[in-house]
């Protein structure tokens, strides 16, 4: 199956098991939002897929290739951390083409890719700008451009709206959704914020105590929550709607 396929995954830190029996799939063009209270294992799951944490059990397949024990750099996964993780000593174009630079791609080719990607995220003319002088939204777009420049097979975003102010949040969410639509890859987002989840994805997976308690289309889960806890967790959705 094309896309991401996670089978019976168990992972955690040292001897502590944080996530257990995790199985799910995300196909190209699908967006899955991982939701759950703090400490439910969302970030652990994201970091295990990314390769930062080694799983204790289970398998991860990306486009039918097993990546469970591949080093991070060999997975070809686009990743946007919560604070965007931009490199302060590099300017915008150097940040965006970093992944191509470490792959030994020529300067000319890097500049061509950067030009296309910066147009996609509407940052033309920002090539030589210093990171420190950018606004929060611009920084996020540089982070997106940088992750997309490597043509990833999967895109992981950690709390993508948490550093965006309330006024522009819905606009940024719209831009992100448009961008996701243009990409032919699976996308996984993580949030603990109900409003962000509402803005960004129709498919959600609810993690509680390291297990996926319910997964599916958001509106159906709201209608038929599996447990009273999920019903309580999704209450803000029903109020918003």
């Amino acid at each position, binding site marked *: 199956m094309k896309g991401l396929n996670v089978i019976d995954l168990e992972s955690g830190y040292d001897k502590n098991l944080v996530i257990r029996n995790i199985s799910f799939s995300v196909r190209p063009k699908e967006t899955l939002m991982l939701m759950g209270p703090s400490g439910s294992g969302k970030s652990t799951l994201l970091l295990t897929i*990314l*390769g*930062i944490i080694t799983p204790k059990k289970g398998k991860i397949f990306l486009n039918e290739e097993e990546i469970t024990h591949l*080093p*991070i*750099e060999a*997975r*070809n*996964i*686009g*990743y946007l*951390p919560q*604070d965007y*993780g931009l*490199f*302060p*000593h590099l300017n915008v174009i150097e940040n965006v083409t*970093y*992944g191509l*630079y*470490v*792959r030994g791609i020529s300067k000319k080719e890097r500049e061509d890719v950067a030009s296309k990607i910066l147009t996609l995220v509407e940052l033309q003319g920002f090539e030589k700008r210093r990171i*420190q002088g950018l606004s929060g939204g611009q920084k996020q777009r540089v982070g997106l451009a*940088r*992750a997309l420049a*490597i043509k990833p097979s999967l895109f992981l975003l950690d709390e993508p709206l948490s550093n965006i102010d309330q006024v522009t949040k819905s606009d940024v969410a719209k831009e992100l959704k448009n961008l996701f639509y243009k990409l032919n890859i699976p996308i996984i987002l993580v949030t603990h914020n109900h409003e962000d989840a509402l803005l960004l994805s129709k498919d959600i997976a609810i993690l509680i105590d390291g297990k996926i308690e319910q997964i599916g289309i958001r509106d159906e889960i709201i209608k038929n929550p599996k447990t009273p806890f999920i019903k309580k967790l999704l209450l803000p959705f029903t109020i918003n709607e």
Partner: protein
Amino acid sequence: MIQKFNSKYLIIILYVLAGLLLVFSITTFLYQYIAALGSFKKVIASFGNNRILTALILSLLSAFATAFLAIIFGVPLAYLFSMKEFKGKLLLETLAVDVPQTFPPIAEGMIFLLMLGPNSPVHLAYTFAALVIAKFFISAPFVVSFTARRFREIRQTGMNLTARSLGANPFQVFFTIFIPLSLKDIGAGVSLCWSRAMGELGGSLLFAGVIPHQTEIIPTFIATQAKTLTIEALAATILVTTASTLALVSFKHFTLSKT
């Protein structure tokens, strides 16, 4: 009880104590120049003394060699300490970084004399190499500690992992993320390392000896001349303290201009 006193007077006392310490430190530093004023021409003439000049050149060369080796060995060690978790790391870090900085240099010289002296298979005592080894042991930890602190800060931001997710292997991350983001801290560590190496005495005195034109450096020259309080000893003191002060001023420049 403290509420009974007028806070205005208490603050004045604090300022007076602070001022006394400042006066003590600055007077000590400036006194060498004041002492030199009385026999200014003789002090200036001493700067041209062949023995002092050779001692100065040997001091500078051994301090630069020490700083260079501290970068070559110290930066990788800082990377190891900041990136890897293993049993006994705390003890190892204490032994490699903290202990040498507080070690009595004369004891260090004694150990090197036993380990690499005339009775050992590798006889390095009383050579230029002995000077560098003695200085390196107590000075290199500055580079390790400053660099490791910065590497840990970078690691905490997760930038290294983002770089790896973009396709960089750990070696590329080291040279494209850790090193460029730590240049100021490495520079500050090297300044202190060099400055400490310039002033090191005990280890050099025992292990490298005081052979004029071969292993005699400014601090050992001062030590042998100090009893008679010669003009040459004063000139040498001025040379070594001024050089170290300049290095420390550059260190402050590195840290204060940190972006």
